[in-house]
């Protein structure tokens, strides 16, 4: 007993309180705000989607997407990824008719606002435009999920398991890829 400080008995409650505070900090991960406003309106003029442009570009501040830190929004994105038929072309990230989304290659940019524009505007060689078809807040959820496929969203908030049969590790255990810009994949080029 002598080895302990005199007030050792009061340490227990303090440790418990610190532990409780630490646990509470995790509440934000699952915070469900149903009437949440999506990130500020996208300044379309300043967003570049390829390296092909006259002159140089204004260095634009990236638009942060809060949904990337939120487990509920990411799982909603995962649900929408199937329900809005992204899986029809991109499969569950591995690609098919469309390019894979779980690798490090990006044709039209990897930043949230660039992916947002890709979904809303559509892209040549098959990506349809979903303008007016998917509400903005749902597009932002999809953006967060698409980035989680290559480990770019918070791994602590990304979906940790599949509801159905799985063919790949869950998004939470994907290691963070370093995005690189690539041209149109060979599979999307005209065959002649």
């Amino acid at each position: 007993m002598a080895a302990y400080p005199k007030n050792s008995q009061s340490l227990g409650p303090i440790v418990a309180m610190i532990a409780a505070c630490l646990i509470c900090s995790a509440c934000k991960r699952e915070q469900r705000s149903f009437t949440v406003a999506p990130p500020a309106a996208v300044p379309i003029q300043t967003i570049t989607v390829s390296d092909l442009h006259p002159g140089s570009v204004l260095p634009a501040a990236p638009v942060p997407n809060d949904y990337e830190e939120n487990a509920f929004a990411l799982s909603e994105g995962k649900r929408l990824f199937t329900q809005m038929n992204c899986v029809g072309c991109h499969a569950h990230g591995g690609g098919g008719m469309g390019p894979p989304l779980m690798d490090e290659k990006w044709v039209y940019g990897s930043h949230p606002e660039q992916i947002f524009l890709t979904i809303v505007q559509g892209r040549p060689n098959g990506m349809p435009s979903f303008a007016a078809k998917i509400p903005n807040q749902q597009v932002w959820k999809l953006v967060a999920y698409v980035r989680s496929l290559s480990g770019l969203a918070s791994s602590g908030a990304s979906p940790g398991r599949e509801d159905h049969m799985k063919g790949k590790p869950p998004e939470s255990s994907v290691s963070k890829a370093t995005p690189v810009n690539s041209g149109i994949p060979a599979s999307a080029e005209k065959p002649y």
Partner: protein
Amino acid sequence: MRAILRMLFFLAVCAFTGCSGNQSALDPAATQSRQISGLWWIFFAITSAIFLLVLLAVLFFSFKKPAADPAPILVPNPRGERRRGILIGSLITLTILILFGLLISDFVVGRDLGQLDPNPIQVRLTGHQWWWEVQYRDPDLTKIVKTANVIHVPVGKTVQFELRSVDVIHSFWAPNFHGKKDLVPGHPTTNWFRAEKTGEYRGQCAEFCGLQHAHMRFVVIAEPPEKFEAWLGSQRQSGASPTSDLEKRGQELFVSTTCVMCHTVEGTAARATIGPNLTHVGSRPLIAAATLPNDAAHLQHWILNAQQIKPGAQMPQQTFSSDDVRALTAYLQALK
């Protein structure tokens, strides 16, 4: 004392209000629920009578004065012991007989409930978070009828439900017709009943299934067979074509904006199956899984801000102008 009596009377009256109503197991509207409620009343009568007798016996012996000069316990009294033995033995026999009686009546009802009409109407009921997809099956695929949250059944004919779920476990419970049955994802279950009484009844998901579990309701409309057939025939038609300019604008909006991603209106480009089928939404009595009246004001609120009414539902917030939402509502209401 008078106050206590008055309160007891009031409580008894309250309890009896549970015996009738359009969402009550004690107001049977089907063969199956009639048998179940019959069994319930048998159990209620017998167990209440026994409870009262036991209570009276306890009160009687608690207040009974002991005999003035009790006989010493250790003196043998063969006659008294024999009398007591016979009394206790017959009470035990009576208990066993009553329990067996209840058991047998339970078996009889259970056997009757397990017998399925060889030629029932087939309905596939799929649970979603948080609404009911209703599909009237037919070998002719063009005659399949799809609707949501309202189940029409003909009186006098058995309806068999194939119960499925696409997300979590739900439970189908229309207390006026039958007991509960769970809808388990990946494991279809079944239940059936034969309606005996016409009327509009209410049902409810009976297994906690998420945030809006309490608002996952449905309507069962029991009607004469000819009326049911007429309803089924009208539901097989494509969605009504818009007549006024407002309705035409509503249809344009419906097939060109967010609605088309999740809903179906037969006869238009809207063919998605994520949300409820809206081909005849104007003919349904209620919307939002039977929680809101189907009128213009509620439809507009639901289209614009479903998240305020049912937070967490898959219907997203929308940003239509007030003119557009009025046009959409007019179109939906015209889909009779």
